[in-house]
């Protein structure tokens, strides 16, 4: 046998970037995923701004200014949670996670690629939603951008952890059902689109403690008041830690 050089891996940055791009393309090319990540938030935005089916207490803001932050929070949820949970669950069932874990990408690279892929899809979402909102008369403060990015990152962390916890423990079909149902429930009663305080009865107290309510408050804080409330930051960090620990412990690759 001749002396051979030992096969080597590509640099970690290149591996993870390749995986992130791969994941983002897979989501943006999938019809159902596009529906939940792009079409749904845009429909909600246009519906809430242009119709009066839902009676909104806009707290003195214009309808578009009041609604857009919540729609951005919804977009983060749809990608970081619903879309990611479903994609990961089916990848897990089909052995994709195991196969990629045997390549130099490895499990941590795969995870990093998934998170970056989610962020890449979110960039596309923000461009589409913000573009639509601007066309509808939205005039945000540019100075709010860092706070919006911060809120988005915190929300992405918490909801990606929840997505992985579900995807790594339930059957793929179960994840499909649960991820969609939870998205609907949180959208309606989770304090995303409307401030938790405007929800009926005990929901008002519960929703502020949910990651959805915290993310909604964070986005509204960033865009309406120029800063993210500390309480929302604490809630989102707490959920991220708890869900992340759960996913790390319970995630099954097989």
């Amino acid at each position: 046998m001749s002396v051979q050089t030992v096969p080597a891996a590509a640099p970690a940055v290149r591996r993870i970037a390749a995986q992130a791009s791969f994941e983002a393309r897979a989501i943006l090319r999938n019809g159902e995923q596009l529906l939940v990540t792009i079409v749904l938030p845009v429909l909600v935005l246009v519906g809430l701004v242009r119709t009066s089916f839902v009676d909104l207490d806009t707290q003195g803001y214009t309808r578009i200014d009041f609604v857009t932050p919540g729609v951005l929070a919804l977009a983060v949820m749809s990608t970081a949670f619903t879309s990611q949970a479903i994609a990961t669950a089916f990848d897990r069932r089909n052995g994709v996670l195991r196969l990629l874990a045997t390549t130099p990408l490895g499990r941590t690279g795969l995870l990093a690629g998934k998170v970056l892929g989610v962020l890449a899809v979110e960039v596309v979402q923000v461009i589409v939603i913000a573009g639509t909102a601007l066309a509808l008369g939205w005039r945000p403060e540019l100075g709010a951008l860092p706070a919006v990015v911060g809120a988005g990152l915190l929300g992405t962390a918490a909801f990606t952890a929840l997505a992985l916890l579900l995807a790594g423990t339930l059957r793929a079909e179960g994840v499909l059902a649960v991820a969609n149902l939870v998205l609907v429930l949180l959208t309606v009663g989770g304090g995303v689109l409307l401030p938790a305080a405007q929800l009926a009865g005990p929901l008002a107290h519960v929703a502020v403690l949910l990651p959805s309510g915290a993310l909604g408050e964070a986005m509204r804080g960033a865009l309406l008041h120029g800063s993210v409330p500390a309480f929302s930051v604490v809630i989102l960090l707490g959920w991220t830690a708890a869900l992340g620990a759960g996913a790390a412990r319970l995630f099954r690759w097989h």
Partner: protein
Amino acid sequence: MRKEGEPQFGPIATHLTRPVHTRDTYCADAPRTAAYDCSVPLSDAPAIDPAQAVTASAATTSPADAAADREVAVEVRGLVKRYDGRAVVDGLDLVARPGAVTAVLGPNGAGKTTTIECCEGLRSPDGGTVRVLGRDPVADARALRPRVGVMLQDGGLPTGVRALELLRHVAAMYAAPRSVDELAERLGLHGFARTTVRRLSGGQRQRVALAAAVVGRPDVVFLDEPSAGMDPQSRRAVWDLVRELRADGVAIVLTTHLMDEAADLADHVHIVDHGRLIASGSVRELTDGDTGPGTVRIEATPGLDLTGLLTTLGPNPSWAAAEPEPGVYTVTGPVDAAALADVTAWLADRGVLARSVTTGRRTLEDVFLDLTGRNLR
């Protein structure tokens, strides 16, 4: 015509391994293996050499380790893996060498895939040791991943991407991958390069998965049922690629249900059942040296009258001749050189030119069925 690697006649003893921890009840448990002597000592086994085993697992970075690297690419000793308390792999031994194809045969549920997954670092053993290129597949996963290629039984391919897009993606994980175009050419992937994996046939998916397993120029390749669902052309392309890898010094471990695949490709065969190694050796070693009657198999024109043949072969009552399918004759009995000459003389007397005359005691499939039983489970 005799194909390369086909079982041949020869007085080579069958090397049966008896796993170290086999309980005494094993023979009693498996009466169908009565043809084999369960007391054959371990030292007869060519595959499991304790001296090399020690070298391979002794150190991780020493020069001795590098030497062991060259001799033993994969070494599994006493592997135990339980699911819900039930041992699926129960003290299994396995060795694979560089530049060789090692086939792992066994009925469904024998523990083949679990064993392979332990070698790939996808499962942690509950007992025993696994070393790939001298390293622990779980603890040293980072070092091993670039050097180990994997083709999973269920494919593991994402379904929403196009075939070649996927292959390019996997190639991007390696510093110096094979040319994707060249590999696609070799395995005939260009015909469906832009088709999504979801719409590929089973055989096409298998070819993409194989390409993904070898695109990183691995030193060790694990192929779990590589030719399942493939048409004969695809299978041939896969076998050619496997032979090329072997010539390049790659250690190839494959599981298969296809006995002709193992017989054609494998330098070494491990037969596994109930989570244990029950036989090990080259195809020749496994199919020869049995105490049963010998066989001459003839392919010729159908409908020959066989009564004269038995007269030619002499008075020994154990001779038997039959035509199990039209044009295929089997002559069983104490086959030796003189008997073979008698058979061909008998054909010559009738002016019959046989398309093939092969001698051999049993096929690999016969051995496999004798060892693992003929009944469905």
